[in-house]
């Protein structure tokens, strides 16, 4: 039987990788994907818990997370397109007119 903590550690790892991606990569797509990684980490947690707790709530939560992720991705990509159009760049560190 697989100990619960394995799953959690796995998700923790995934989460960390996601965070690192968000913090390091310049390409806005990859930043977004890293965020997706973080979400997936959470999903793994939720499903694992729901399995071990024998409640479906976790799975339900995951469904919603995925839905939201979809909507978010849509908006995000739209904005990116806008930026690429106006600013001709998809690198997050080019977007800093406003500072201070």
């Amino acid at each position, binding site marked *: 039987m697989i100990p619960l903590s394995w799953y959690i550690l796995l998700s923790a790892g995934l989460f960390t990788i996601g965070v690192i991606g968000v*913090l390091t990569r310049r390409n806005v797509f990859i930043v977004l994907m890293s965020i997706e990684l973080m979400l997936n980490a959470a999903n793994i947690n939720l499903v694992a818990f729901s399995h071990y707790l024998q409640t479906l709530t976790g799975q339900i939560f995951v469904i919603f997370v995925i839905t939201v992720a979809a909507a978010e991705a849509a908006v995000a990509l739209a904005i990116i397109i806008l930026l690429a159009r106006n600013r001709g760049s998809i690198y*997050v*560190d080019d977007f800093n007119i406003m*500072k201070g």
Partner: protein
Amino acid sequence: MLRYALIPLLPFAGFLIAGLFGKFLKERAAYFAIAGVVGAFALSVLAFFDVLGGTIINENLYSWISIGKLSVNVGLQIDQLTVVMLLVVTTLSSLIHIYSVGYMHGDKGFARFFSYLALFTFFMLVLVMANSFLLMFVGWEGVGLCSYLLIGFWYEKKTASDAGIKAFVVNRVGDFGFLLGMLLIFATYGTLNFSEVFKAVADPAANFNYLLFGSEISVITVISLLLFVGAMGKSAQLPLYVWLPDAMEGPTPVSALIHAATMVTAGVFMVARCAPIFSLSPSAMNVVAIVGGLTAVFAATIGLVQNDIKRVIAYSTISQLGYMFLGLGVGAFSAGIFHLTTHAFFKGLLFLASGSVIHALSGEQDMRKMGALKSKIKITHAVFIIGSLALAGIFPFAGFFSKDEILWSAYNASSLGRGLWVLGVAAAFMTAFYSFRLIYLTFYGKSRMDHEAEHHVHESPKVMTIPLMVLAFFSVVIGWIGVPGAIISHANLFGDFLAPLFPHAEHAVAAESHWFELGMMVFSVVVALAGIRGAYAWYVLNPSWPAYWAEKYKGAYTLLLSKYKVDEVYNYIFVDGLVHKLAKVLYTIGDVKIIDGAVNGLAQAISSTSQQSRKIQTGYVQQYAFTMGLGLVVLVGLYYVLN
């Protein structure tokens, strides 16, 4: 009661009218002022007879200040001492008012002058009639105010307004002592009313000793000394005399009234009034006597060489005031007051006369530019002689009696009496010398005036000369009210009149020493005559001497001429050093740099922090995200550390 209240109020009314409506009244303003003062004089005479009839008044008009156990009333006390002062003040004041009509004629501040003069009279009367220290203090500072106003009367003259400020501030230094004295009196006896305080002082239980600098000092001594500091300021004693010579910047009638006859004697009056306190503290009395004696000689020496006619008289005033304190100090209170009275007349006379001279010379005050005026202004010359004889103390002029009484009681006074007597005699000699030096320089010898000035010389109008003559008359006779027992026994009316007020120190003298006393009188007269003769020898017989001796003892001469450089020293130490320079330093360093510097510095620090921290906001998303992550890590880390 109202009758007495009117004594000060009439001059006050005169002041109000002359002051408020001066613009319309022009020179008519004088009449109101004079009316007020003369009215006061009349009432004073009545008051005098009341007192003579044995009615001593001490009544409260209304409650002035009452906080907790502090309760001060506005009230009048009219006893022998008061009426004497009343008469002196009102008489002199009236005469000088009248005199001023002529002297100030045509001055653009004519009305203002009379209003001030009347106001002064009011305050002076308050001073002498007060029945409590605090009310006396009102008059005390009030006369100071008027002196300030009148010294600086010609305010466009810088020197005049400077002198005014000097007078006021130096007096404030004295008042500082007076004030503390009052505070201590209240703290000790719980009242400020004269009669109550004197009653309390009398009972030993109320008194205790301070341990100051390892020596026991009775509270009474402390009080007396503090009060005497006040007297020093007002009566121009060492070391606070410096303001009086400068006060001569004021119009001459002012010098006569305020700086010779009345205000400057307030200190003497105050010490006499407080005789019950002073007489309980021998050490304080000694201080008074010594200060008086020293001042008498000190001022006289300066008087010897001055060239400004008014300054000579001013220094002689200081020295005469010293005489009075000498008298008080040796316990001869009534003698002191007696000298105050006579001095008021002949010194007033001298000032007015010198005023008349100045008037005649259209403003010239330097004796080196005078001479040979005898024939030109006869009346002035005559009264001047009388005044000087009185001042020199030649029998039978007023000064003789009073001065002699003081010397005599000094001689008989305690151990240091003899020393004081010597001082007195020395002062007497010098007095005689410089007053006749003044006369010879002014009226005799050959004229040193420029022709144009000489051309204008004229005798003053009646309105000025008549008061002169009145005063001259008094300068002759006023002394006779205090003939010492040695000449005619029991003829010292003045002394007897004041006797009930004072502890009888001088009457301790044994009666059989009359011959000795007479001898002393003769001696002092001889000294005075010697002084006069000396002056004659120097300034009439061979006028080259002064220059010669001045050359011979240049150092001494210049030192005297420059009044021992006291003013310079004071200016350097106090005015410039302790006030202005220190103030500048404190302001620029203390306030601007340190305090405000700290405040603004803090503001600066915050705003620069703000400027710096703007750099943190780089505008890079990932840096923002990192900061969030950092927050997370730190929080978790903290939790981890804490557990």
